[in-house]
């Protein structure tokens, strides 16, 4: 007969951010466990709230499935001796399987006959196996773990009760001195202790005790509550998905409510209002039907409507205190000037080996100037960009950013406008922090883009130069994200600047500073590898495969938009039949490139027509290639190389490169050398796994 099974882990309040993932793990691990143990069941459901993770298995069979398994033994020809008797090998095999030679039968696999025995594995009683579920509970991984009391288990939060039921029977086990039972607990304040008679009662008993165990249902209740408030008040409550997701995991029984604050606070920057509501208090901001922010907010209480007015009043008081602080900061901040804050930057360390933020800003200015020259900005544009670089960090010293750190840059823009800065310059203060995530929005303006890469390159080169290289999951300064940002900006802007040129600017700058740097070659190698990995990451996002990636970034990440274009083109060519002939020719050259050196090809040393022809073809192509390569025309640059293919094949078919005559050999190697340099300027085609049919 089948029975229902329930496991519930009762915890002190779990961090909201861990709950969805932990629930998912519990479900997947349980399914895998049942499968591995061959326990048939009807269906499986998981539940989660801040205080519990649970899994409910319906119709679990009382016995494991009994199975017949084939065990494969040695080949038949060594299983019997010349007399037709079973050999030691065969007998040993059957004994190992708990069988006798009478059980042997043979079967052919790929033309060879082997001996087999059939094994019968009797399904055990499930009840004996269920206590092992302890290991599943202990194996759940959380982003951050802790210990408590004298326990050694590391878990997100302390385990306070455990429910484990097989039908009406308790499955006995113990974790961190907590024994399993059939007792669970309702809502912390509104609920009671619940004695479960059967797993099937779980969801409804808890609902009676003000716990909605299904996270989807809590989410629906919140959305429902928000809709009701919207309709009753004739306004809009935009539901931010991430906030909704967090809020549903902060409560066991959600009740949405609406509060308000003084209209006067609406004069604060809207980002300040929204951050105060969303980030600090987990409220949903409210707007009018036409999208104007209103002096209202929607919160979600963990409980029912009992004394809701008190809860609303308390929440209003908290928000008012925050907004009154913000108002105070705004007024105080605007009494000062940008220069006042600039001077204060001298007092704050950016990183202990890399000096103050003020030092950092000086470096950003230097890099910015160099980049504006490379791009060829006119004086007016250049002036704006340098100004933006100069004041890019001033807002870090304001009270507002000190309190609302997530508004760095945004506050800077608002204040800069107030202090009379050009809107482009002010906007760049906000934009230079972009992209905030690897795939986040890029700076919209040219000025913002330049300051953004200047700031990021300074951080990356600076950190790596003093030995702060990201390892594994350790990347405290977010160097990977910033490097990705740099490459994306360069590519999107289609600047005619290679990454290596930029790195040279920054590393040369660091050489001139009074900073103790790691060994120069080591830093250069680390920077190269670091950026190649970021470039690979971005190219993979564009569905370029690793071998093509290696081919295009082998020497340098280069001008990244061009690198992308080459990678895309080569990805097509690698399975293009008509390219086979060309690629074979180019790879033939490259295969000899390690042996080749010298650049002086002398026509008088040519002994055959084919080598003279190849050289003249090279000279014909060289200039065009350079032009297209310079203009980042991936298709036409490759076409130039294609024009060499016939001559290359003919060269190899008709000449011995390693000729006995030293002069002839040197001349041919020099020819190979200049050719392979040309090809490598495009890509190291040797690294590509060609996919044409051979």
């Amino acid at each position, binding site marked *: 007969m089948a029975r229902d099974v329930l496991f519930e882990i009762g915890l*002190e*309040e779990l*961090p*909201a*951010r861990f709950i969805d993932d932990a629930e998912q793990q519990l479900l997947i691990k349980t399914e895998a466990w049942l499968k591995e143990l061959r326990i048939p069941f009807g269906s499986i459901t998981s539940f989660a709230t*801040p205080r519990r993770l649970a899994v409910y298995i319906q119709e679990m069979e009382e016995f494991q499935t009994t199975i017949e398994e084939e065990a494969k033994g040695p080949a038949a020809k060594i299983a019997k001796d010349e007399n037709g008797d079973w050999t030691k090998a065969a007998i040993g095999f059957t004994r190992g399987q708990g069988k006798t030679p009478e059980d042997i039968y043979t079967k052919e696999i790929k033309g060879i006959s082997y001996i087999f025995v059939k094994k019968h594995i009797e399904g055990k009683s499930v009840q004996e196996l269920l206590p092992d579920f302890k290991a599943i509970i202990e194996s759940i991984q959380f982003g*951050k773990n*802790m*210990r*408590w*009391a*004298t326990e050694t288990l590391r878990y997100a*939060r*302390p385990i*306070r009760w455990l429910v484990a039921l097989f039908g009406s029977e308790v499955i006995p086990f113990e974790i961190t*001195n907590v024994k399993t039972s059939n007792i669970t607990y309702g809502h*912390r*304040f*509104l609920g009671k202790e619940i004695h479960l008679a059967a797993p099937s009662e779980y969801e409804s008993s808890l609902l009676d005790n003000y716990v909605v165990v299904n996270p989807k249902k809590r989410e629906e209740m919140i959305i429902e509550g928000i809709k009701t408030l919207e309709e009753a008040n004739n306004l809009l409550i935009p539901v931010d998905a991430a906030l909704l997701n967090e809020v549903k995991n*902060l*409560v066991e029984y959600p009740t949405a409510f609406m509060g308000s604050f003084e209209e006067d606070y609406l004069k604060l920057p809207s980002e300040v209002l929204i951050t105060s509501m969303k980030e600090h*208090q987990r409220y949903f901001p409210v707007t009018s039907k036409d999208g104007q922010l209103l002096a209202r907010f929607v*919160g979600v*209480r*963990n*409980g029912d409507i*009992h*004394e809701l007015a*008190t*809860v609303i*009043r*308390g*929440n209003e*008081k*908290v*928000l*008012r*205190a925050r907004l*009154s*602080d913000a108002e*105070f900061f705004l007024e105080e901040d605007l009494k000062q000037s940008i220069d006042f804050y600039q001077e204060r930057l*001298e*007092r*704050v*360390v950016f990183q*202990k080996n890399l*000096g*103050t933020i003020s030092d950092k800003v000086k470096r950003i200015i230097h890099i910015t100037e160099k980049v504006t020259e490379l791009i060829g900005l006119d004086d007016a544009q250049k002036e704006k960009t340098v100004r933006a670089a100069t004041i890019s960090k001033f807002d870090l010293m304001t009270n507002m950013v000190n309190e609302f750190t997530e508004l760095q840059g945004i506050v800077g823009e608002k204040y800069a406008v107030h202090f009379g800065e050009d809107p482009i310059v002010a906007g760049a203060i906000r934009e230079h922090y972009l992209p905030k995530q690897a795939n986040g929005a890029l700076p919209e303006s040219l000025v913002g883009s330049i300051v953004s890469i200047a700031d990021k390159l300074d951080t990356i080169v600076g950190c790596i130069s003093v030995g702060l290289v990201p390892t594994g999951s350790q990347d405290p300064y977010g160097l990977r994200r910033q490097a990705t940002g740099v490459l994306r900006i360069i590519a999107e802007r289609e600047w005619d600047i290679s990454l290596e040129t930029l790195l040279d600017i920054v590393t040369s700058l660091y050489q001139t500073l009074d900073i103790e740097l790691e060994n120069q070659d080591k830093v250069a190698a680390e920077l190269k590898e670091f950026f190649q990995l970021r470039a690979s990451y971005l190219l993979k996002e564009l569905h370029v495969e690793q071998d093509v990636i290696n081919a295009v970034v082998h020497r340098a990440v280069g001008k990244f938009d061009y690198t992308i274009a080459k990678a895309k083109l080569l990805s097509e060519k690698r399975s293009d039949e008509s390219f086979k002939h060309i690629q074979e020719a180019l790879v033939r050259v490259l295969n000899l490139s390690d042996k080749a050196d010298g650049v002086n090809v002398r026509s008088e040393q040519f002994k055959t027509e084919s080598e003279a022809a190849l050289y003249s073809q090279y000279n014909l192509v060289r200039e065009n290639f350079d032009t297209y390569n310079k203009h980042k025309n991936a298709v036409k640059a490759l076409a130039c190389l294609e024009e060499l293919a016939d001559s290359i094949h003919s060269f190899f078919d008709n000449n011995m490169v390693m000729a006995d005559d030293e002069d002839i050999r040197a001349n041919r190697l020099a020819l190979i050398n200049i050719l392979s340099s040309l090809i490598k300027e495009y890509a190291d085609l040797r690294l590509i796994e060609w996919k044409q049919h051979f």
Partner: protein
Amino acid sequence: MNIQEMILTLQKHWSDQNCILMQAYDVEKGAGTMSPMTLLRSLGPEPWNVAYVEPSRRPADGRYGENPNRLYQHHQFQVIMKPSPANIQQLYLDSLVKLGINPLEHDIRFVEDNWENPTLGAAGLGWEVWLDGMEITQFTYFQQIGGLEANPVTVEITYGIERLASYIQDKENVFDLEWNNGVTVRDIFYQPEFEHSKYTFEESNTEMLFQLFSMYEKEAESTMNKGLVFPAYDYVLKCSHTFNLLDAKGVISVTERTGYISRIRNLARSIAKTYVAEREKLGFPMLEKEEN
């Protein structure tokens, strides 16, 4: 309920849970955690349950008595239990009921908040407790103290007395809070708030403070080398407060700043290690007491 009654209520409640009621520690400090009754005693295997009010000085938060929410010196009610009891959340919630906060009439939540104090090499996991959206308590399971792993784990509950009182008494301005019948925080603390702010930001003798820092630091080190943990720790606290005064005045240059913090941290770390070693020499006396 006035502040005095709140403190009496909390003392009675935690005394009933077998906490030793201590008085505030008599050296200036930025938080109740820094009292040796917490920081040192939470180290090592000996059980330790204690509760006390701690006046906490934060020179940089001084606002001349003009800001309704910020103070040079506020009060914390600190509870420390080692090992952390299984019903600690309930014990805490019971204390709120005794303060007149009926959980059924409010929204009380435990919202993730992890605590770290690099100066003391200390870190913990836990929550801030929200009462109708307002943070009233820090609730932390220490995981590391003075660079040493906390084992057994200590739980620390820190009530912000003024915060909680502003809710209980429904006051917007901290200076309007009633300390006992008719006497307000303004009556007691306005003048010291103003004067300490003025001293900190304008009048303090910077040169003397720098000298004091060095002297305290030397004394901490030499005292510790003699295995005298508690006096050494007092000097660490003095270093820390002196540093806070200098920092609030904005006279510590950047490079120096990092240097000062790491000097204090190194001292705190070696004191933590020495403390455990000294307790071990004594045979962890509190451990035996428990067994008897």
